[in-house]
């Protein structure tokens, strides 16, 4: 009775159910991780197709043609004249982009999202569908329609992954983004402070310059204009007309801080990071070349070894077990009086000198080490002599091992 009660108690049930849940989720999880595609051959074929030249040529020509068509579409006369052509071509381009998206997703569903350029592709496909949906949702005369058409120009960014140089440039520049962002945030903070200051000084009173400092947004614009030192004399003139004599100090101070200090800081920070990234890029190129060279050398060596082993197995009369047997006959033909002039580095005297000097050093070190070992063993032996008999037999085994 007790046992059944225990069996059906809540804790026990919870335990059992949780363990059941664990078991089932574990099983599902192992199934998911052990999931292997069944269509590996076709997948490999498609992957080869994607990485091949034909596909990249196709994509590059499609994107360039698309860019050209978009430029032609801006002219009203041409658009009117060739309206049908543009419609058909548009459908073609969208289908090519969707096809690319689909097969890339097919090849690697999970790894697709890890590559930044694939994410760019997805964003551009979403952008492609924006005008269509805006037109459907808001009707034909929505003011935001031309915005939707304007951002179609981003399609040309799809060209970037197909050019190795630009890709590496962007990766190198991408590392400077953090510093750029921090400088921008600093600039924004500075402008914020000065905007509030300017608003309260010049824009809030009755005789104030409401045009330029009336609200925060306009104040920001004015300050940005001061930062880029474009047309700031006109703004200053406006302020002077209203009689704000002290405004000159304000403007000049902000120009010094914002334009001279901050914008120059930009340059300095960028120089620092560009140098870093260019050095890293060059080092990686060097490494690549180095690795390729090593690979080549290994290949040559391997070919030679295969040749020699083949010759060894091909012995007609006797079995050549080692290389030295193989060349014994050849060795006999060599005479001491035959000169051979060599220019390789490994047969030159400096090399031999260096090598033997290094080996001598090693020899010295090892003999010193050996002496130290002998000393240690001597000391231990002496210690053993001073210890009682039982331990002595035990440790003598160890010293014999040693």
């Amino acid at each position, binding site marked *: 009775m007790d046992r059944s009660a225990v069996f059906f108690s809540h804790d026990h049930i919870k335990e059992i159910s949780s363990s059941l849940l664990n078991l089932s989720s574990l099983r599902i999880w192992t199934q998911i991780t052990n999931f292997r595609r069944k269509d590996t051959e076709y997948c490999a074929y498609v992957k080869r197709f994607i990485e091949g030249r034909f596909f990249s040529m196709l994509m590059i020509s499609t994107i360039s043609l698309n860019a050209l068509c978009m430029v032609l579409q*801006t002219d009203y006369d041409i658009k009117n004249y060739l309206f049908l052509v543009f419609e058909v071509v548009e459908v073609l381009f969208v289908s090519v982009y969707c096809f690319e998206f689909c097969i890339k997703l097919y090849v690697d569903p999970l790894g697709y999202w890890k590559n930044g350029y694939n994410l760019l592709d997805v964003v551009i496909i979403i952008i492609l569908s924006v005008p269509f949906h805006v037109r459907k949702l808001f009707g034909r005369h929505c003011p935001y329609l031309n*915005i939707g058409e304007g951002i179609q120009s981003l399609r040309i960014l799809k060209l970037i992954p197909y050019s190795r140089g630009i890709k590496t440039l962007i990766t190198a520049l991408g590392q400077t983004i953090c510093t750029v962002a921090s400088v921008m945030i600093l600039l924004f903070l500075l402008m914020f402070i000065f905007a509030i200051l300017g608003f309260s000084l010049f824009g809030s009173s009755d005789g104030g310059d409401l045009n330029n400092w009336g609200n925060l947004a306009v104040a920001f614009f004015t300050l940005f204009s001061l930062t880029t030192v474009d047309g700031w004399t006109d703004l200053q003139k406006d302020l002077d007309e209203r009689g704000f004599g002290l405004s000159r100090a304000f403007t000049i101070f902000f120009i010094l801080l914002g334009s001279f200090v901050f914008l120059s800081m930009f340059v300095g920070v960028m120089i620092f990071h560009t140098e870093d990234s260019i050095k890293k890029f060059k080092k990686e190129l060097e490494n690549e070349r180095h690795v390729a060279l090593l690979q080549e050398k290994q290949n040559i060596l391997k070919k030679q070894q295969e040749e020699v082993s083949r010759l060894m197995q091909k012995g007609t009369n006797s079995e050549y077990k080692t290389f030295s047997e193989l060349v014994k006959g*050849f060795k006999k033909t060599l005479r001491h009086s035959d000169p051979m002039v060599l220019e390789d580095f490994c047969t030159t005297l400096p090399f031999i000198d260096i090598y033997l000097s290094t080996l001598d050093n090693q020899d010295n070190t090892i003999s010193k080490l050996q002496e130290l070992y002998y000393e240690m063993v001597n000391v231990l032996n002496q210690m053993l002599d001073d210890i009682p008999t039982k331990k002595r037999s035990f440790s003598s085994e160890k010293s014999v091992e040693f």
Partner: protein
Amino acid sequence: MSAELPEVPENFEPTAVARADAVRSRLIDTFSLIDHLRGLSQAVPRHNLREFLDPARQRKLMLGDHHQLVRFSIRPAYHRIPFAQRQQCRLRVCCNPWAPISLWAGWVLRKRIFINFVNCLIFLNTIFLMIEIELVNTTDVRMLPIMMALEVGSWFILFVFILEILLFWLYNFFLFWKSAWNLFDFFVTTLSLLPEIVVLIGVTGESVWLQLLRICRVLRSLKLFARFRQIRVIILALVRALKTMTFLLVLLLIFFYIFALAGIYFFESYSRSDIQDLEYQMYFMNMPNSLVTVFILFTLDHWYALLQDAWRVPALSKAFSSLYVILWLLLGSIIFRNIIVAMMVTNFQAIRNELSEEATHSEMQHKASIFKRQIIKRRLNQKDGEKAKIRSSSGHIAPQTSHHSASLLTGEMSQTENLTKTSVPKDFTAPQEYLLVSDSLVDWETHVHQNLHGLMEMDQDEQVVWPRDSLFRYFELLEKLQYNIEERKQLQEFAVKALINLKDN
């Protein structure tokens, strides 16, 4: 980007087996064992390229057996062979029954007098042009002879320039087109030739094109750029800086395109509005205008005025237009311009290093030769100090090298010229002694590592004469040595392990 690259470990140490394999492969190569074992050819190159090129030795060789093989060893040479040298060896030039015009043309072109003459003519041409411009509108009769003289002088100078180009074509037609400076020369000369041709053909009249063509005469002064070394260096530096920035400029062009196209659509209502007195209405009308506007914004000129003008149109969404302008200013004018400055600065550093390449090369050679002397000295000291020490690694033959045994080796053979290359030079001056002393503070192995590369790249080729069987034995022993060293390393590891075990108990 870095994930695709295989990792190269910092110290790429080949294992002993790999080293032994390398030695064996060297052996096979040197003696062409594979060919021999296949039974293909019994002949092994006994002569060296340098032997062959030395005229005295060559004569001796030619008198002997003509079927000897010569071993080619190719090394990337630092000094390129100029075309003039190459030309003198060519059969077409040497054995020509007619006079070798190309040789003569090359000789004339290289003569200092000719080069200075042409440079003076360029200067003279500039002066003539200046005088002509002053006098072209005078109707003074006395100036007529001067004008005539200037005209004749101008034509003469033009003929000399054409003659110079013809000489170069005679010298080597195809080499002319390969050098960018020559192309520039050619282009400038033909362009300045155009007005004269046009006048000769007889086209008269005061059309604008004729006057423009006359201006092309001034281009002849540009030929100066190709002549003087300093100007060339500056132009080369600029061109190289631009070359490394090509991708940046391509990226910038892409962004120009994006913002121009987007601008047309964003400002559509502004371009089409009916409000009067809009100053910048044409700015986003079509693609060419839009591109120019984007460039104007890139240079930060009157952007706020443009924006304020655009806001006057109520149909234009203020948020999007200001977002567009601000984004373009930040991205294009602030970020991109500073990236260009940064890349130029880093490139100029690299260019400066490259231009002083020759200086660095000679410095490296100098260091390598000092290193060599150090090794030799050290070897001599060691040999004197430890004569009795038996070396386990070396055999009974040649690799027991000191200079005495080397001289034994080479003494029986041909000249000791190679010995003089490796012997301690007489001009072992005091400052280099100091260098030796200070360098001994560094660990020997690191010292070797630092200087080994320089030693391997030394210009003068070391030639060592080996007897053949000694060389074979040397390679064999070197290979066995690698295995021995490996074994010794393993034994040491055992000893260390035993020691550690002992400590634990």
